[in-house]
């Protein structure tokens, strides 16, 4: 360090320093507000995650069908409501042949006298090898019976009240057979027979367990291209059934293919509709709030008017007004309808925010400096309401997806068999306890989409809000 007292300036110290332009150069690009926001958005973790999700969804929707070429409307009644599983096999059998059942000729149809009690039937057995096409059972008649009730359960019954599903009845003590074809799966069934007097049951029963073999008929297999022409005579041969990695729905349609196809409708409606009506709501509410006075009153009363209209009634009306024919997809009319009826909430919220912000000091300052209203609204007011707007936007996504499902349900929107996530959800609700996959898959996809928008919203809020810069 130089001793300051002993410092003696010389002439050189007062010479002009050479101008070095490089020092003056702005080494980083000058950033406008929005550019700055973009830069910070890219650095935001949440926004990055949401970007990956969006890419994932896009790949699933657009590229998915290229790799998974399954017809989403193809019904497979051999595999209804299957949970996700590995490929299954089934034995090839011939076409279904009608069975007349067994009616004994040497046994009375009606008992001669009403018996107070009768014995349980004996020798309850499968008449032939049980398959998922049909289970045929027969038993020995019990004297005094005027008919039999047939029950089926998924487990061994504990007592008389636990026999399970009442499948049917036979009328006549000599009618000692029953054919069960009710949604059979390859699992153990416990069949019970209860003798009746033709009307009321006697409290005795006989049980037998039968496990049907999974089969597919030649016709079905041929129709689905599961076998070649020369394999057709190979009855009994094990055939690999179609693979449904995500399971099937209530008509045996492939869930994965439906989710992929449903994504198109749901993502389109779920993203485009909110953008349209939220942006309209922002402009509408922004104007009302900023200018205030009579314009505000008029605009907001109109918003009240729209909110109070009975939604369902007007949906039906729009459907007719747009002239959507039977079975036609009304995606565009649906967008218009959603936009027409759903904007007021955003408008009201934005207006409230603007009312609050326009009284802030910095707005006053900007106005005194000569800022025009449009500049004020765009540069100062809207960015400051962004947080609230983004929350509205992210909530509008699932709302639009479910409104689409509801509209499709009443015949507006996409026509069956075209799926959408929302309508798959609605259908899945019915079976949510026994076949949860039919609800969980579409609901998960909707959740993930909403998650992406929430993360993006958070990222945007942080990127756009200048006040948050100090925290980084």
């Amino acid at each position, binding site marked *: 360090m130089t001793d300051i007292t002993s410092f003696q300036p010389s002439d050189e110290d007062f010479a002009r320093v050479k101008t070095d332009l490089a020092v003056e150069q702005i080494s980083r690009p000058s950033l406008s507000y929005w550019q700055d926001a973009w830069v910070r958005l890219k650095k935001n973790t949440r926004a990055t995650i949401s970007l990956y999700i969006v890419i994932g969804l896009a790949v699933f929707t657009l590229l998915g069908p290229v790799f998974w070429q399954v017809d989403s409307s193809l019904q497979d009644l051999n595999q209804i409501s299957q949970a996700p599983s590995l490929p299954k096999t089934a034995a090839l059998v011939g076409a279904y042949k009608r069975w007349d059942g067994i009616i004994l000729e040497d046994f009375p149809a009606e008992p001669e006298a009403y018996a107070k009690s009768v014995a349980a039937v004996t020798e309850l057995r499968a008449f032939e090898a049980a398959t998922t096409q049909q289970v045929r059972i027969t038993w020995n008649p019990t004297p005094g019976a005027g008919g039999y009730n047939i029950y089926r359960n998924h487990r061994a019954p504990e007592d008389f009240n636990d026999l399970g599903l009442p499948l049917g009845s036979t009328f006549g003590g000599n009618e000692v057979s029953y054919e069960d074809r009710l949604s059979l799966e390859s699992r153990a069934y416990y069949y019970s027979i209860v003798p009746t007097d033709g009307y009321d049951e006697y409290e005795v029963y006989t049980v037998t367990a039968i496990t049907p073999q999974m089969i597919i008929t030649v016709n079905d297999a041929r129709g689905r291209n599961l076998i070649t022409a020369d394999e057709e005579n190979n009855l009994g041969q094990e055939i690999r059934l179609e693979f449904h990695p995500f399971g099937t729905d209530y008509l045996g349609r492939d869930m994965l293919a439906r989710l992929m196809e449903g994504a198109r409708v749901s993502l389109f409606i779920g993203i485009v509709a909110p953008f349209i009506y939220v942006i309209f709501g922002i402009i509408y509410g922004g104007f009302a709030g900023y200018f*205030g*006075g009579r314009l505000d*009153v008029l605009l*907001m*009363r109109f918003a*009240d*008017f729209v*909110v*109070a*209209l*009975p939604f*369902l*009634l*007007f949906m*039906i*009306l729009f459907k*007719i007004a747009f002239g959507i024919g039977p079975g036609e997809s009304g995606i565009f009319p649906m967008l218009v309808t959603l936009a027409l009826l759903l904007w*007021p*909430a955003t408008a*009201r*919220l934005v*207006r*409230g*925010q603007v*009312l*609050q912000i326009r*009284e802030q000091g910095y707005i006053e300052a900007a106005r005194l400096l000569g800022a025009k209203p449009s500049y004020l609204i765009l540069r100062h007011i809207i960015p*400051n309401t962004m*947080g*609230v707007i*983004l*929350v509205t936007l*992210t*909530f509008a996504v*699932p*709302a639009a997806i*479910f409104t689409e499902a509801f509209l499709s349900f009443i015949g507006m929107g996409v026509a069956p068999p075209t799926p959408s996530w929302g309508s798959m*959800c*609605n259908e899945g*609700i019915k079976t*949510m306890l026994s076949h949860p996959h039919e*609800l969980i898959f579409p*609901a998960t996809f*909707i*959740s993930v*989409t*909403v*998650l992406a928008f*929430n993360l993006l919203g958070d990222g945007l*809020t942080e990127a756009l*809000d200048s*006040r*948050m810069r*100090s*925290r980084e």
Partner: protein
Amino acid sequence: MLAYTLKRLLAGGITVWFIATATFVAMHQVPGDPLMNDKAVTPEIRKNLEQKYGLDKSATEQYFIFLGNMLRGDFGISFTQQNRRVNDIIRDHFPVSATLGLLAIFFAATGGVLWGALTAIYRNRLPDIIIMFLVILGISVPSFVFAALGQLLLVNINSMLGQSLIPVAGWGTFAHMLMPSLVLGLGTMAFLTRLMRSSMLEVVNEEYIKTARAKGLSPVRIFFRHQLRNAILPVITVLGPQVAAITTGGFVVELVFAIPGLGRYFVQAVQQLDYTVIMGTTVFYGAFLVFMVILVDIIYGFVDPRVRLE
């Protein structure tokens, strides 16, 4: 203030009239009519029915008759419940819906403000992330699922306890109301949570907070007096219309929990094209909504003196 309120009420009246007119027109434009049923009726019986309900008159005539009756506060007799006046339906069932709705809003608002504030304080930390996931689940799953699951939960609690502690459905006691109002308020709670979080984050760096901190106010006082009060404005904005929407929009919850509310009438009337009930409930709902909006605007003035209403 009085002049302002009166002016708003007048404007509200005009809004309601517009709502009534638009609904009336829409109702008559939609194919089908309230007299149609699964089993066809003979032309004679149909003529008798039309006469009885005044549907044999032209639509314009019907409209003016309706307006006249509406001004006298009479909405006529329901088509589907042929012995009941629409006024009675509203009188009997609106209080039920209102109780359910207000309780739901109470849960939604307290929950929303609380969780929202919490997430703002713990921004980007674990509580924030957990609550965000719950919120997303809350809005991405149809409300019917929550209603069904909520009820199933009650059934399981009861069967575990071996006695029916909380009623699984029905209406009457406070215990009946808990689960349905929670389920009904869930969506709004999720929305308010996110809204609150976002507006808390905006407020937290305001100059007045800094001033307050600099003054040496306790953090608790800053939180309640300055932060919360300023951040709560957007919540109040949405609350008004939400109260109206929730009170009449509880169709699913009312159905699942067997609650005798007005929401069921609201939906069924449109499905059945029950002209008088549609008009009655729509006009009533419109008036209620307009009233809530006016109320919110007035409250706004109280909470934030900076907001000028005129």
